[in-house]
C-alpha cells in the first residue's frame, strides 16, 4: 500500500517516524553509558549502514535502491540516521546480558533476525527497492558480520563495567554536591 502525497510519501513518513521514535527512546532510556560512548554507538550504527549502502547500492553491484531515486538524495541521507539508535540499543542490550559465550551468540542471532524483519518492514514501506535478483535473506550474512563486529567493539571498548541504571545521575549529583 503506497500513500502518494506531494509533500511526503509513505517511505519518507516511515523514515521520519523511525528516527523520531528511535532517538526519543535513546534519550528516554535510563543511562548506562557515558555521553561519549553513546555518541560512538550512534556513529557506529550510521557508519555500518552508510558503508554497506555505498557498497551494495552503487555500480558495479547495484543490488538495491533507497527511496524514490536511483541516486543519493536527502531522504537517503536521512534514512542513514535511522540506524544510529539501533546500534545503541544493541550495546545497551549487551550490557544487560549475563556475560557468557552462549548468551552473546544467541543475542547476535536474535538481533540478526530482528534486522531482517525490520528490513522487510522497510521494504514494505518503500524504503528499499531490490534490483538484479537480490533477495532479502542475502542481507542475513551482512547483518551477522556487522553485529559480530559490533559485539567485538563492545567487548573491547564498552565492557569496562557498564553503569548500573541510574548510576550516571547519582554520580553527577555526587559531583555537584562535592563542588
Amino acid at each position: 500500500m503506497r500513500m502518494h502525497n506531494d509533500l511526503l510519501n509513505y517511505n519518507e513518513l516511515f523514515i521520519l517516524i523511525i528516527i523520531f521514535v528511535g532517538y526519543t527512546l535513546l534519550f528516554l532510556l535510563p543511562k548506562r553509558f557515558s555521553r561519549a560512548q553513546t555518541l560512538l554507538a550512534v556513529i557506529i550504527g550510521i557508519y555500518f549502514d552508510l558503508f554497506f549502502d555505498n557498497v551494495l547500492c552503487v555500480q558495479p553491484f547495484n543490488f538495491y535502491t533507497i527511496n524514490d531515486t536511483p541516486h543519493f538524495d536527502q531522504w537517503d541521507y536521512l534514512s542513514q540516521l535511522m540506524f544510529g539508535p539501533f546500534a545503541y540499543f544493541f550495546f545497551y542490550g549487551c550490557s544487560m546480558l549475563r556475560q557468557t559465550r552462549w548468551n552473546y551468540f544467541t543475542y547476535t542471532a536474535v538481533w540478526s533476525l530482528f534486522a531482517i524483519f525490520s528490513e522487510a518492514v522497510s521494504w514494505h514501506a518503500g524504503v528499499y527497492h531490490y534490483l538484479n535478483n537480490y533477495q532479502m535473506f542475502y542481507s542475513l550474512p551482512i547483518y551477522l558480520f556487522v553485529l559480530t563486529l559490533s559485539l567485538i567493539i563492545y567487548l573491547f571498548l564498552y565492557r569496562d563495567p557498564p553503569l548500573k541504571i541510574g548510576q550516571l545521575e547519582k554520580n553527577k549529583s555526587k559531583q555537584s554536591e562535592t563542588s
Partner: protein
Amino acid sequence: MILAANICLLWAEIGWFLCIRKSLSSKQMLFVFMSSSIVLMLLFNATGLLMNSDHKPYSVPEFLALLINRNGILPLLTVLYLLAVQNRKIWRRRFTNVLFLFIFDAYLFIEKHFVQMDTLSWPIWLTGSILYLFFIRFLSYVFAQMSDCNGEV
C-alpha cells in the same frame, strides 16, 4: 594494478600506525576513523551527484580500490594526522599541519580518477582539504571533551 597499489599503500599506513606512539584512546581513534569515513562517503556521494559525472562504471577491481581508498587509506591518514599533531611543540604542529595537507592534496591529485572531480582546480582541493581536516579536528575535540579520555586535540 590500481588495486595492488592501494593495498600496498594501506599496508604501509597500517605499519606506520602500528609503529607510532598513540596519544589518543582507542575510543577516540575509532570515533575519528568512523566519523572521517562518514564525512568522506557523504562528500564522495555529494560531489559525484553535484558534478553529475559521466565516468564509465567502475570495474570490480577499481571499485575495491575505491573502497580501500575511501574507507581505509584516507580515514587512517586522518587518524595518523591527529596522532601526529598531539602533544608537540608549536612549530612541529605547524609543520605537521602543512605536511599532512601536502600529503592529502598530493594523494587526492594522484587518485582524482576515483574522486570524480577532474574538473575542479587545485585551490578548491586545497580549501576542501583544510576544511575537512579542521572539521575532523573539531569533531574529535568535541568527543574528547565529552569523554574522560586524556589527550587534547
